[in-house]
């Protein structure tokens, strides 16, 4: 299976601080790849590097075999990469409707967009209820749903999810992840999932990588990693 996204020897950081020290990983077409690690391991940095939000200091990033490192975020988005950032990135001053419309901003096909709106409401009925409400008044879980819906409205080839479980109550997290299982089955989008909650992530992913202080220390099939007790206990903490 060809890789949709590939990084080779990726180095990145913030100014003087180096965070990523040469990481290699791949996201397969149509699959879910999990990127795990503790706080500060560099997971968010990786996603930001992919999106062009920070400058990389070495290595390459390839999307469908084409280099995207060094390109502007807007251009990368145009190529079909949707990023749900940590903290959701909701436009809190705007309404739910406006947030969703922005998700479809780069798309030309209006009929297709209307259809997609309906599908989003299918996954997240609460968004239909709160359609005209100001996004900032939504609960954390609803904002996460909104963020995911917004990203999906791009009809992306690659979906980057940064810690969707963060700060949410366990029940809500379960709900969101079960919706994600459906999305993954129905949408045909490849997903790179960054998560601290390893068990949830390994449950949905095919491939998994473990990041530790900017380096990949473990990679392999999610199912195997999940089964391996020693890895689970020493690296994943459960």
């Amino acid at each position, binding site marked *: 299976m060809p890789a949709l996204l590939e990084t080779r020897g990726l180095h990145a950081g*913030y100014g003087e*601080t180096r965070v990523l020290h040469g990481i290699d990983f791949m996201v397969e077409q149509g699959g879910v790849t999990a990127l795990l690690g503790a706080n500060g391991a560099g997971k*968010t940095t990786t996603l930001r590097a992919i999106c*062009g939000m920070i400058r990389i200091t070495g290595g390459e990033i390839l999307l469908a075999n084409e280099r995207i490192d060094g390109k*502007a975020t807007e*251009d990368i988005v145009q190529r079909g990469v949707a990023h749900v950032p940590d903290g959701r990135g909701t436009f809190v001053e705007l309404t739910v409707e406006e947030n969703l419309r922005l998700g479809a901003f780069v798309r030309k096909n209006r009929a297709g967009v209307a259809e997609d709106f309906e599908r989003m409401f299918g996954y997240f009925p609460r968004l239909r209820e709160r359609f005209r409400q100001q996004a900032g008044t939504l609960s954390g879980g609803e904002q996460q749903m909104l963020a995911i819906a917004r990203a999906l409205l791009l009809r992306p080839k690659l979906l980057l999810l940064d810690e969707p479980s963060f700060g949410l109550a366990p029940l809500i997290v379960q709900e969101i992840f079960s919706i994600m299982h459906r999305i993954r089955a129905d949408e045909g989008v490849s997903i790179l999932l960054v998560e601290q909650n390893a068990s949830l992530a390994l449950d949905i992913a095919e491939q998994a990588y473990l990041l530790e202080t900017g380096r990949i220390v473990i990679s392999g099939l999610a199912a195997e990693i999940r089964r391996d007790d020693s890895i689970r206990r020493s690296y994943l903490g459960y």
Partner: protein
Amino acid sequence: MNAAASTMRTFTLGLAVWVFAAAVPTLLLSNYHLFQLTMVLVYAIAILGLAILTGFNGQISLGHGAFYAIGAYVTAVLMYQYDVPYWATLPVSAAICAAVGFLIGLPALRLGGLYLALTTFALAVAVPQILKINALEDLTGGVQGLVIDKPDPPFGLDMSPDQWIYLFALGVGGVLFLLAWNVVRGRTGRAMMAVRDHALAAEAMGIDIALMKTRTFALSALYTGVAGSLGAIVIQFVAPDSFSIFVSIYFFVGLLVGGVSSIAGAILGGAFVEFVPNLAESISKAAPGAVYGIILIAVMFLMPSGAAGALGSLLSRFFRLGTKSGQLRVTEVGDRSARNVSPPAGVAHGARSDAGGSGRL
């Protein structure tokens, strides 16, 4: 070199400069050139006042011309209407301006950088109008203003009035600069700068921010007010339209060009304000403003710490008082817009400056 030796060295250097300035120009320069040099001093003192407020305490004022005007009018009115000797008007002017500065500092507490800049801007625009109020015309001379006499050298000294005024201004200036240098070097100065750079932390360390800021405003107003008084004495004339918004703006420009948080920079700023218009006018009648503007923008892009900062990095420590490198570090208190953020959120930093071109920071 340890701190004490460095201080001593700065002081000696400053003293030497002062003595040189007292002796050489007085003996060598014509009356007209002395007059110009005196105005450089006057503007330097005014800009020093602004430096205290903006450079060292981080409060942006675009309205210091108002204090300059108050000082000038206090002196003029006292001399013209009440025959107060010129030198006696200075303390009165200082006191009044300090009080006004304190009063303005109070509402200013609520304002972050831009709002304060706007409010002081509004104040400066309103000043000429206020000075023209009919009800006060008897006192202020209305639109025509007041003309005052040039003071004679005291004790029958054998020198021209221009020479005497120059020395007088130099004396006052010397005292004021020394005072400012002391304040900035000491605990107060450090507190001022702490408030400028990180108000919350300063407050946590026990600094009463409100009091500090209003006092700084008062001190700053005092300086610029005394400068105004001196200015009135030198020029011998005050009128409302001499104190337009451009006075405030030119002080501001002089501050930035000379060096924001630099005491010596104030002198450079004063020279800039005095000489550049003359130079510019030889290029074109309308030019002074444009030349100011162009130089200001060029400085902001190329040398944000002003001429003093640039010179300072050449001349090492003598002139850089206050901040480590004389660099611009004026931050808005309370406005956490994407400028001062730490790395993880620093993404916003890079994203904002991006024009949709290369994605590079």
